[in-house]
């Protein structure tokens, strides 16, 4: 009997097969999210396959976010290819170039509801699991198959259950608990598996924080991350006008591969030291490490409360004169609210560089790449060699609080010390 959230959800979407752990099943997809990969590869593969129409234009959402605005002529052509496909195939839910980073704008625009099966042409599609759905990343060929058929095959994953207890100490965030989990499980401890998370005290982790944790699930190899529903989820969905959904709870007899509990009050500010997101240490242990660049943004930590936290650390301070502090609100909506709240003015006045919403430097795209040997503290998700430019540049992954504290002092700094 399907018992965990992922088992129940795959079973609800079953077309063919038996929903048992390890089995390969064919499932219906509720929503397909596509970004620049559409203009770069998917359009070509779809035409090569002879695709003349998509299965259901209403169930496809498209967005340009990785390189916004196009930094080169080559990228401009990728964007043109994307627009041509959107027009030719009548894709009605195109968020275009003016919305922001997919994993922030897709849920904020109301495309995601509890109980859905969502796939996206981006590994961090695991993010939407914050909203009690199953959501996973795929490549261009899988995306093309779904464009054509609206279904695909999935291996039913085993589930690791995590209970988050207690509440955070001051200036410790969801990013820090995600880094703690990366240290626990490593970069492949969740490979092919589903992570199911219960937040014991709903108010202890905001929905924004849950997006951050689900986002980083893929850095542990997770196929998907499903949060249990609670009153905080209901309240969040109400704010964006979503009603008439059905949440999914695990069965009491659900079989888990492993159970863990984490006390949020035991976590301190953490940082992932290059070259791996799982090479996690307390920020306080990194002494005298000079910083050349700080990046606050990305699908991991570019939401409004991330910017509010960074601004609260900044207060009246200035950015250190050696540091390029690049701040990128993850969506136009976040940008506008940050403007209204005076956050952008504070950042610019303190010497930061504020850019228009894009994935930008996180994937080595544009707007702040690193030179040889440079050191960057980033709120993003990957510190692999070469991820943000030069192969020997060092990327440290941390929370917006730690990132801003380091931007002020010019050294990697525990935010509690600023």
């Amino acid at each position: 009997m399907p018992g965990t959230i992922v088992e129940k959800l795959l079973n609800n979407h079953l077309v063919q097969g038996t929903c048992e752990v390890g089995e390969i099943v064919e499932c219906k997809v509720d929503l397909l999210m596509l970004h620049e990969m559409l203009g770069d590869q998917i359009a070509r593969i779809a035409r090569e396959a002879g695709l003349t129409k998509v299965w259901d234009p209403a169930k496809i959402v498209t967005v340009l976010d990785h390189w916004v605005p196009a930094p080169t002529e080559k990228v401009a052509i990728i964007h043109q290819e994307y627009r041509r496909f959107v027009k030719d195939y009548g894709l009605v839910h195109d968020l275009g170039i003016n919305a922001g980073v997919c994993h922030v704008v897709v849920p904020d625009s109301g495309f995601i509801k509890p109980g859905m099966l969502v796939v996206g042409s981006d590994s961090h599609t695991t993010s939407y699991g914050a909203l009690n759905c199953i959501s996973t990343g795929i490549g261009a060929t899988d995306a093309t198959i779904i464009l054509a058929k609206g279904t695909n095959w999935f291996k039913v994953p085993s589930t690791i259950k995590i209970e988050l207890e207690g509440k955070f100490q001051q200036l410790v965030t969801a990013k820090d608990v995600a880094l703690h989990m990366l240290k626990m499980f490593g970069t492949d401890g969740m490979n092919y598996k589903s992570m199911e998370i219960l937040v014991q005290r709903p108010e202890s982790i905001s929905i924004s924080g849950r997006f951050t944790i689900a986002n980083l699930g893929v850095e542990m190899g997770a196929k998907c991350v499903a949060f249990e529903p609670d009153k905080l989820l209901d309240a969040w969905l109400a704010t964006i006008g979503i009603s008439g959904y059905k949440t999914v709870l695990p069965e009491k007899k659900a079989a888990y591969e492993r159970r863990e509990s984490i006390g949020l009050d035991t976590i301190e500010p953490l940082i992932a030291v290059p070259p791996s997101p799982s090479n996690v240490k307390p920020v306080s242990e990194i002494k005298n490490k000079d910083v050349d660049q700080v990046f606050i943004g990305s699908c991991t930590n570019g939401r409004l409360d991330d910017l509010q936290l960074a601004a609260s650390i900044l207060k009246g301070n200035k950015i250190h004169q050696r540091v390029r502090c690049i701040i990128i609100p993850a969506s136009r909506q976040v940008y506008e609210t940050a403007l209204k709240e005076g956050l952008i003015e504070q950042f610019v006045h303190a010497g930061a560089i504020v850019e228009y919403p894009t994935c930008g430097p996180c994937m080595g795209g544009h707007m702040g790449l690193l030179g040889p040997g440079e050191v960057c503290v980033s709120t993003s998700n990957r510190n692999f060699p070469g991820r943000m430019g030069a192969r020997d540049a060092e990327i440290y992954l941390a929370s917006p609080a730690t990132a801003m504290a380091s931007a002020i002092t010019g050294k990697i700094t525990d935010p509690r010390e600023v």
Partner: protein
Amino acid sequence: MTTTRAWKLSFEGKNQGSAWLLGNDVSTDDIISGKYLEIREVDALSKHVLEGIVLDFPFKIKAGDVIVAGDNFGCGSSREQAPALLKHLGVGSIFAKSFARIFFRNGINIGLPLITIPGDVVSAFKTGEKVVYTIDPPVLENATSGKRFQALAFPAFFLNILRHGGAIPLLKADLAKKK
């Protein structure tokens, strides 16, 4: 990217090539860095494969060579260019202790056999050593030392995709049937 060189992988008989040894956690950023993804021409893009990891890999690899690697091969970004470029350059198969999930799907989908070898495959090979390998059943043998590794057979579902050269030729046949 589905173009490949004239060499063809045999599913019935033995394949031969040299081994390229890589470690654990080879990411799709290692295989092809994000800073090059604006390049859409496959030949031009493939010149940057494994840049900074294996000197001149794109120019030295020969069709039919294999990659032998440790855990979590292909972790990170969902970029399908990673397995597609390796196939384009002539990689016949990848044998690893484990593969990251999205890379595994992408590899099978573009028709590149990704073979999970239980046991310490990495210490049994050196870069440049000759290997003999088969896909069905999946077996990798070091032609010098004679060490032999056998993996679990592919489920019929995957093998069918691989034999067709990937999932797109299958989809194409499907779509043509419906017309």
